[in-house]
């Protein structure tokens, strides 16, 4: 049986699918240069985001349903291009795998890279399939399938996804700004916005000056490859900057819990000639002295120390032994002992 939550999820997916379909209907009026089918569709991020948010089924329903709705509004009927609708569904389904491949939530570079790979796959694989169907059915020659269908869609959808999905995830609380993410995000958005701007400019120039579309999309593909390489490089360098901080934080956490055994992990960081190296060395020294102080304290607690005020003791003793009662008692006890000793011998 469906729970209330399932109904809500389905309702949101269908509603977003409707928005997606209507946006498709609107954007369908303006095709990309050299295309009679592909267009600038920032709305592709909607099914992708639904997938990330609610899972692969939700992403598929949103993408496929929205695409069919777009055709319906355009008067072509829901089954106008079923393989393209399926491709749109797959475009939502693939990012829906995020939770299964450790790309949700995004709180470090590794899950972020996994998310970007999913977005590239979501923009490429489904449309390779639908373009393949077009070519397979003999509707378009290979050249047109590549430059009129696949590449324009793949390049633009990837860029839209790269640009819009991460901020949407941040808004939904699925992208957490830990130090690794903060380091890579500045470079990431700078690169994406620059590449997107260049890409859109190239499209405009192509439309006005009628440059060969093959050149445009080849340029686009190269740009995309360069972008991916750039992101990979920035991911690696960000990781190098932030890894020591992450290690330091983890060790600090453990020290906070009373576990000093991981301080040795800071030795490698301590050998760095920069500020992080200094920080690791200072932290290690600090932890070592805290550990020693704690051990000393523990030893102190375990060790009994008896302190006696001997002066007071002597004064108190004199008070007791100086009394007449005590003197008499001592004498009596002495007599008794002597008598007992005599009887014994």
């Amino acid at each position, binding site marked *: 049986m469906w729970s209330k939550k399932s109904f809500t999820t389905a309702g949101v997916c269908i509603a977003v699918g409707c928005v997606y379909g209507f946006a498709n209907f609107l954007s369908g009026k303006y095709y990309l240069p050299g295309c009679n089918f592909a267009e600038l569709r920032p709305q592709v991020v909607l099914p992708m985001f639904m997938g990330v948010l609610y899972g692969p089924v939700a992403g598929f329903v949103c993408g496929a349903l929205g695409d069919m709705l777009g055709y319906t509004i355009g008067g072509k009927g829901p089954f106008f291009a079923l393989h393209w609708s399926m491709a749109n569904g797959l475009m939502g389904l693939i990012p829906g795998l995020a939770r299964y491949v450790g790309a949700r939530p995004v709180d470090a570079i590794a899950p972020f890279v996994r998310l970007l790979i999913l977005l590239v796959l979501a923009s490429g694989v489904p449309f390779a399939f639908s373009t393949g169907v077009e070519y397979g059915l003999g509707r378009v020659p290979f050249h047109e399938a590549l430059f009129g269908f696949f590449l324009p869609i793949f390049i633009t959808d990837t860029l839209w996804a790269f640009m819009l999905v991460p901020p949407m995830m941040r808004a939904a609380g699925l992208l957490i700004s830990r130090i690794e993410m903060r380091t890579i995000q500045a470079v990431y958005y700078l690169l994406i916005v620059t590449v997107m701007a260049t890409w859109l400019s190239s499209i405009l120039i192509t439309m006005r000056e009628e440059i060969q579309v093959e050149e445009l999309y080849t340029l686009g593909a190269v740009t995309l490859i360069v972008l991916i390489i750039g992101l990979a490089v920035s991911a690696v360098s960000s990781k190098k900057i932030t890894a020591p901080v992450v290690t330091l934080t983890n060790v600090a956490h453990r020290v906070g819990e009373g576990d000093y055994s991981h301080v040795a992990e800071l030795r490698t960081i301590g050998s760095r000639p920069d500020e992080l190296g200094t920080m690791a060395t200072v932290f290690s020294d600090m932890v070592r002295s805290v550990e020693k102080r704690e051990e000393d304290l523990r030893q102190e607690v375990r060790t009994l120390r008896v302190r*006696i005020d001997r002066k007071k003791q002597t004064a108190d003793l004199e008070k007791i032994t100086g009394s007449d009662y005590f003197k008499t*008692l*001592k004498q009596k006890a002495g007599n008794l002992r002597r*008598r007992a000793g005599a009887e014994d011998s």
Partner: protein
Amino acid sequence: MDFCLNLWFFRAAFEGARFLLFGDPSIENRSLFGNQKMAHIISVHSFRGGTGKSNTSANLAALYAMDGLRVGVIDTDIQSPGIHVIFGLGEEDVAYSLNDYLWGRCTIEQTACDVSSVLQGASPGGAVYLIPSSVNAADIARVLHDGYDIDLLSDGFRDLIRALKLDILVIDTHPGLNEETLLSIAISNALLVVMRPDYQDYQGTGLTVEVARELDVPRMMILINKAPSTFDLEQIRRTVADTYNCPVAGAIPHSEEMMGLASHHIFAVRYANHPIVTELKQVAKALRS
């Protein structure tokens, strides 16, 4: 001189033969009263209250009785009696208390209650008699107000040993160093000073040990009780022995099981194989040796 030496030799030979034939002769101890029974008087004392003195007295008495001895336990803590609870005695079970004896209402042997049943049959030939102090508030108030003749107490110990044919008399004293405590210490063959590893106990324990030394008590030992589990018991033993220049009979850690009994049973009977009982046995042995 020669006569004395010969006498000593024959006595040693006799004791050796007796040991071979009948076993441990250590029951034969010297008594200050020098009577034919020659009972061993052990005072259990602490300068402050709450050290576990009464519990220790009760357990030592039980251990001696389980060893086949006739043991008397006398509660001289007249101002705040408590050991009767450990032996399961209520106010209604006490016909005459130590107070009655001190006020001339009865003989000392009339105050003795046979509490051997608490040993649950684990005392072949042994017996425990308790001489309780009164728990009646008016009686306690009267003692505090009027006092009593200390010499009667001394006579009472002697008469009790004779009447009940006791091998051991354990005196559970009142904390502090008042006249009856000094008397108990003075007439004892052995004194066990109970202390906790606690700053509140250090000074008073020191004073007690020095006073007992002045009174020439033949055997004096310290029992460290309720030691926190974080402490190193061996280190505590050494430190206490060095500080007070006095042998340490035992060091007993704080025990949840003992606390669980809430002074309502005798630990040595209930947990006969517990490490604490083993330690108490060592203490009992050391006090008699």
